[in-house]
């Protein structure tokens, strides 16, 4: 019911029926490594594979922007003359996705905008996964009061309306004077990344905490404890490498969450404002709402579909990763 995608928070634990191929059922019990097995399972998840290909193509397109973009981000496709205005030209061979209100090529702007959005998504996800992993693992190993407090805090974070938390914390961070030199203005990319990371690390922390709690009672941890390994070593050498699957899944869902959150912020006019014509996917989607009633359909369809495609493909890849690395499937013991 919550407006903003509750992908991680409400994603149910997938129940996997018996028919999924396991090492035994394929007669590969002795020779296949868990990683190969995960890869095999991922490849058997058809939507995930298709989405990986689409996503890879989109990323390639965006990364190779000097080759793929046809105009600069702030460049009109031709100067307006008395005969011919460059405003709102519908899709044609000059501008594949049409032009905007000052004659800029929407196709090129989408490429630049997606670049910025992907940067924001990835940076947020990496920071959030880093903090979330550290805090989640610490809480699970330490237990007790710290763990309780963390759980209560994350409970509230998950149930509280995401957009409200985003807006209130945005204002708060903006008023803290000593953060200004580090984060810059409220409309800078750095500020938005930090703001999103502050909010989404809690979901990662919960995932990691659960994973560490489940793993730390296993025999191989006991064995390494018996030979005298420190807590730090156990976490970094045994627990985290064994939780890499769920962490990766959380990473993908965090990327989507961040991209959509950026778009939502921009939609309400609180997103990053990059100056000198630069744009983000969220900004492009935000301008689309002014073009709904005026009938400039290309200004609406293309940004919306791009964002949708991005969210969809990353979600499906995450779903495939989850199926591939689900510990429930690793029957006959994990990789100890």
């Amino acid at each position, binding site marked *: 019911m919550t407006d903003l995608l509750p992908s991680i928070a409400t994603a149910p634990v997938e129940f996997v029926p018996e028919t999924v191929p396991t090492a035994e059922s394929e007669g590969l019990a002795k020779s296949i490594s868990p990683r190969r097995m995960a890869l095999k399972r991922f490849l058997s998840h058809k939507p995930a594979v298709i989405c990986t290909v689409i996503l890879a193509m989109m990323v390639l397109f965006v990364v190779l922007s000097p080759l793929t973009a046809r105009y600069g981000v702030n460049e009109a496709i031709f100067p307006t003359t008395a005969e011919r205005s460059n405003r709102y030209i519908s899709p044609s061979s000059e501008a594949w996705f049409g032009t905007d209100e000052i004659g800029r090529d929407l196709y090129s702007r989408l490429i630049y905008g997606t670049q910025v959005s992907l940067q924001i998504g990835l940076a947020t996800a990496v920071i959030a996964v880093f903090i979330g992993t550290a805090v989640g693992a610490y809480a699970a190993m330490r237990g007790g009061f710290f763990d309780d407090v963390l759980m209560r805090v994350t409970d509230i974070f998950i149930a509280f309306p995401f957009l409200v938390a985003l807006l209130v914390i945005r204002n708060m961070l903006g008023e803290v004077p000593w953060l200004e030199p580090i984060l810059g203005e409220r409309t800078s990319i750095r500020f938005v990344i930090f703001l999103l990371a502050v909010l989404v690390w809690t979901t990662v922390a919960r995932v990691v905490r659960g994973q560490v709690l489940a793993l730390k009672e296993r025999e191989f941890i006991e064995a390494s404890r018996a030979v005298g390994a420190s807590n730090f070593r156990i976490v970094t050498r045994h627990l985290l490498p064994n939780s890499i699957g769920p962490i990766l899944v959380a990473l993908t869902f965090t990327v989507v969450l961040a991209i959509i959150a950026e778009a939502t912020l921009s939609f309400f006019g609180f997103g990053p404002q990059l100056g000198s014509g630069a744009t983000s996917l969220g900004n492009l989607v935000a301008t689309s709402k002014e073009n709904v009633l005026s009938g400039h359909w290309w200004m609406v369809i293309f940004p*919306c579909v791009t964002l949708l495609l991005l969210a969809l493909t990353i979600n499906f890849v995450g779903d495939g990763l989850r199926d591939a690395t689900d510990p429930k499937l690793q029957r006959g013991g994990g990789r100890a």
Partner: protein
Amino acid sequence: MVRFVVRRLIWAVPTILIVTFLVYVAIRIGTDPVASYLRSNQRASEAKVQEYIEQNGLYEGFGGYVKGYFQWLGGFLTGDWPHSIKGNQPVWPNLKDAMANTLRLGIIASLVGISIGLVFGVLAALKPGSLRDGGINTTALVMLSIPPFISAILLQMLFGVYTQRWFPDASWLHLPVAGVYPPGHQGFDPVLMAKHLILPVTVVAIQTVAIYSRYMRSSLLETLNSDYLRTARAKGISERRVLVRHAMRNAMLPIVTLAAIEFGALLGGLIITERIFSYPGLGDYFLTAYSNGDFPELMPWMVFVVIAVIVFNLLADLSYARLDPRIRLD
């Protein structure tokens, strides 16, 4: 059971107090109420500003925050709410109307979404691994990935602009895209209201359907593969009865919990949909108050949202304990 309920209830009170205090501090720091008061009332005299500060307890420093919080809390509980900074209006009437609108939208969308979602989930779980299952699963993930503002904009464009261009005669396809009633409408008209609700309800229900069908599928699958269901079948009970009396009842347990939590998130969770459809609900109320920095309007809103979240989380726990005899509480 009684002890558990009482203990949870006793814990809920300090939780609400602590969270509302944190929210209070966050809003005090974030909106700077005095500055936004001056922004909205530029000709306010020194005495007026002082009166505003006194009324809202906007004292400086950490001690001032604590003192101000308790002053605000006292006023809130006794019904003595400060007036809004814009237009100096009482807060409760607006908040009440907004809440009624949001609840109407949210409850209808929940009912539609939950019923469709549960049917999808059951259909998928009955034939795991089939084409139908795969189709429903993929559709659900697609629906879950659609950000609400995208679906809202696309629906608005389709039904607000293009159906009128393409099918100028089919008036049933021309759906209103904003508000509860057309501008200038007076009085109560359920048909008109329902027509205005179609698109917002669709936007909200898309996500609800996806969430519930995924939950229902995994919950029912787990139940269907359990030992007690094999026992029920072995006793010779008909498949239909096995499904309805044994499997469904157990599979519904997590759904009830989920519904309670989701319902708690409803009040503050429809902001995006409401804003796009200019629907005068709590979301619209919040965004207006937020951009005005209207402290007297923001605080009651926050408190209601926080209380809803905490109380419905509590209800979720309690309902689970009440419905599932396997859970023992003491």
